[in-house]
């Protein structure tokens, strides 16, 4: 409950934020704080400097992209995602999944960027972004670069966002007839995920991303048919953890179940 001493800055612009992140050893961005503050309470790991992104209003924007896809500001909160008309039109799965994350209080402050950059293996959004083929825009000292979801997630609490860099935007392609699905087995109703999976189905091909079974989402491209999906998951190289909530075998079995259910939901939609 009692954090170690930490430096704090609240920049007014993205450039200033990037500069602070680059110039200060051990600096980490502070978005909604719904993960990093907990880790600091346990003093399990501690950043030396927190760069508070709260003042960067333009990172909160949610807008339809030119091609009918979606542009989500990294600081958009889950509550914004749940209530956004653009998202309901362009990519309703985001609102549906955001509504299952934690509770009202966390959703009022937790952000899209925070969820995918903390990349806790049980987080909801990394698999959704992987299945949807999202693109992450990362700002750095020498301008912005784009990284695909496949390349973005590197490890637990580790993504392609490097020292001195900042995720500013997530872009999702237009559905164009495709449809999304998500399924999870959770601890209690809408609790922490024991296993989850997201799927995006276009025509008869499914991109399925498995969560909670590895340090990062495991993406499979397979025919959008239940047996094929189950087989693909059974053959996938995953290394699920064993813990209080389930053994590795249980998670391995559930991965096939939630993958099939996510694809089934997507097929209904498309």
């Amino acid at each position, binding site marked *: *409950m*009692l*954090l*170690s*001493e930490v430096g704090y800055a609240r920049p007014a612009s993205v450039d200033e934020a990037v500069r602070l992140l680059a110039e200060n050893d051990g600096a980490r961005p502070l978005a909604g704080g719904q993960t990093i503050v*907990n880790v600091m309470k*346990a*003093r399990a790991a501690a950043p030396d400097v927190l760069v508070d992104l709260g003042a960067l209003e333009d990172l909160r924007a949610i807008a339809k992209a030119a091609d009918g896809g979606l542009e989500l500001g990294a600081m958009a909160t889950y509550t914004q995602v749940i209530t956004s008309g653009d998202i309901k039109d362009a990519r309703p799965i985001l609102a549906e999944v955001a509504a299952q994350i934690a*509770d009202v209080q966390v959703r009022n402050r937790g952000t899209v960027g925070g969820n995918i950059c903390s990349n806790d293996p049980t987080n909801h959004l990394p698999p959704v972004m992987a299945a949807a083929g999202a693109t992450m825009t990362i700002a750095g000292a020498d301008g912005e670069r784009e990284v695909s979801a496949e390349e973005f997630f590197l490890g637990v609490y580790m993504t392609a966002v490097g020292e001195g860099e900042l995720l500013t935007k997530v872009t999702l392609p237009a559905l164009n007839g495709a449809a999304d699905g998500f399924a999870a*087995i959770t*601890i*209690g*109703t*809408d*609790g*922490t995920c*024991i296993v989850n999976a997201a799927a995006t189905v276009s025509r008869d091909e499914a991109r399925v991303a498995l969560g909670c079974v590895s340090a990062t989402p495991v993406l499979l491209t397979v025919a959008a048919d239940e047996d094929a999906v189950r087989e693909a998951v059974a053959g996938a190289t995953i290394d699920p953890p064993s*813990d*209080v*909530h*389930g*053994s590795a075998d*249980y998670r391995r*079995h*559930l991965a096939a*179940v939630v993958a099939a259910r996510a694809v089934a939901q997507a097929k209904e939609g498309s």
Partner: protein
Amino acid sequence: MTTVAPDQVEAPQKGFAGTSIPRKEDKRLVQGEGVFFDDVKRHGMGYVHFVRSPYAHAGIVSIDVSAAEAVEGVYGTLIGEEVAAQTDPFFEMSTPPGSEIRDYALAVGKVRFAGEPVAAVVAETRELARDAAELVEVEYEPLEPVLDAVAAAEPGAPILHDEAGSNVVWSGKFEWGDFDEALAEADHVVKIDRLYFHRFSSTPLECAGALVEYDKGIAQWTLHCNHQMPGIGIVWMAPALRVGTDKLRIVTQDIGGGFGNKITLHPYFVALCLLARKLNRPVHWTEWRTDQHTANTHGNERTFLDVEVPVKADGTMLGFKVRAFDDAGAFPRYEPLGCIIWAQVTPGCYRWRHVLVDFTQTCTNKSPTAPNRGYSRMQQLWFTERVIDVVAHELDLDPVEVRKRNYIKSEEMPYETPNGCVYDSGDYARCLDIALDLIGYDKLEERRKDAESRGKLLGVGIGSTLDSGTNNFGQSQLLNPELQFSGNNEVATARLDIFGEVVVTLGTTPQGQSHETVTSQVVADLLGITPDDVHVRAGHDSYWNSHAGFSGTYASQFAVTGLEAVKGATLELASQIRRLASVILGADGPDDIVLEEGMAKRKDMPEAALPFMACGAIINVNNAGLPPELDDVTLNCRYVYRPPFQVPDHETKFGNLTLTYATQIHACVVEVDRETGVYEIVDYAAVDDCGTRIHPQIVEGQVHGATAHALGAATFETFPYDEDGMLLTSNFYDYHVPHALDMPPLKTGFIESPSPFNSLGTKGMGEGGGAGIHCVCAAIQDALRPVGNPVVTESHNPYHRVWELLQDPAASRAGIEVTGR
């Protein structure tokens, strides 16, 4: 035979008792104006942070606090050596070897569970205290931990307490009736090799803590805290601190839930007392959630081995035999009392007469256990309910019918159990019928088919629970004949102040059980005033002199001991008012005076009336000329209630261990997803019988809350340890407490079987919710019968456990054997 002669029950005239009046506690609590210990602040107070052991079992080679003490803003520290020098070990209740255990406020020489406090640091701010705590250098010499109660009893197991030379805290045999006769008479004997009740806790939302002040002038401590059993707390703390009991003033106002977890706080509080004295400054300690899970008390963890149940073909149960192992954790702090408390409900709700129990309690390198809601009785009741369901299924009988055949009948009440306890009143079969009706039991087959059509397995389960209330502490002598504890008591004072206001103080420590409100109802009815006219002081203060040895709020006893103490003090006050008014108004005698609307009136001439204000004024400020026969009238009455107990017989361990037995019969319907083991409670009913209901809404609230604890434990809540002795659910992230979306809609019903053993007919009823664990286990076993008839042998059934039962039903049946004649 020690049946207590039932005295005549005065049905309370339909006054305020029996109605759900608005609660007096609410006004302050809904405005955030309650006073919980962490809200209390003192000028110059230091914040305490405990340095805790990362090891489950290790020797302490050295502790160096110099770096911590050098930090500016750090007021001081405390380590085990100082505690061992300045205090004596806490009083141990057990017989050897358990009695040889030396338990101090901090670890001395050795650490015995991960999270055990090794040193304390006091600093100007909360954050600085934690920073400085990280500078305390402790060198450990890791030892092998033992983490299973059964293994701990085996020769060669690592020994926790070298001075005791064994991990056994207490062991004993209980033999009632004639088990061999039962075997001879039985058509079948059902054997179950292992049943396991898991470790968990009711985790009150407010963690433990205290602000402790030391008054150097009178060498006395004041503890603003949330201890829920101050009477016993002081009995442990005073001798350890080598001071008289009056040197420890315990003050509580609002407590954020207790459920038994705030009974054994004495080690922490003794450390705080030493610090307050050493630094001559108030010290303030707040336990955080992770500290509470890793190092505060847990509920009983009990393993039942080699169960044998002789039974007739028609399902009549004759008795049971079992070897039970109970896990006390690193230190027996309320234990070994749990080794006898289960005997309050030996037969559960059933009429079997032949019992053989071999009971052993051992120490393990885990956090100490202590009374957690349902303490030791819940474990025994779960055992009897599991036996009923397993035997019924193995003999292809309907568990509902087997219950009805074996339930103790209401006409047999008061019913004496095989070990001499007396079930005062109740109608179990009728409660079961109400519960079955509430869940639509007769339409279950249709629902089972509908569920199957959706790929779900439907199951129904019953859970019967007795909530034994008001302990006879004489049962402790069955563990250790030399113990000088027996009976029970509670205290209350009632007085008329100078302006005629009725002021009541209690000895209890409510943590949400609405004592101020329920007390005001009883007092109002007895004095002919309204509850608003009764001022019940909030909380507990040992300075009020309204407490005794067993004061506190625990073990479902307020509705009996608390209210009887209140009734005793109020009747004495009423009698004194009538005697005073009789003299002042010139009536023939006190019996000619009646108390109505805050007045003492002559029955024959109601206009001749003395308002309470006048009575208060006369005695307090205007008492010249009062006749000598009123010399003892003070209008300030203290009453100590003692329940009618005898000391049970040491040899046969026979005798009445509790005064009242409330009943709760629960029934639930679950739907299990065959593919994932995930299950949902689709229907739930709880039927309660706690004798006379003083405040029905409050009784219902207790039923809802206790059921939520049970459903949480049945599916989500567990305290497992890894092989290094690390607790795997050390905070609310992994220890999932049910929230509003997790709870199924609860249907409730009730009947009232007044207890003949106290004048109000009431029964303590806060701990009957364990039935939720029993009925979920039964419902899962019923649902899975079509897929291999697996047996539910554990109290905790998370989704992955149900999936394992679905995958390999035979594995769960390996320990089951039915021998037929």
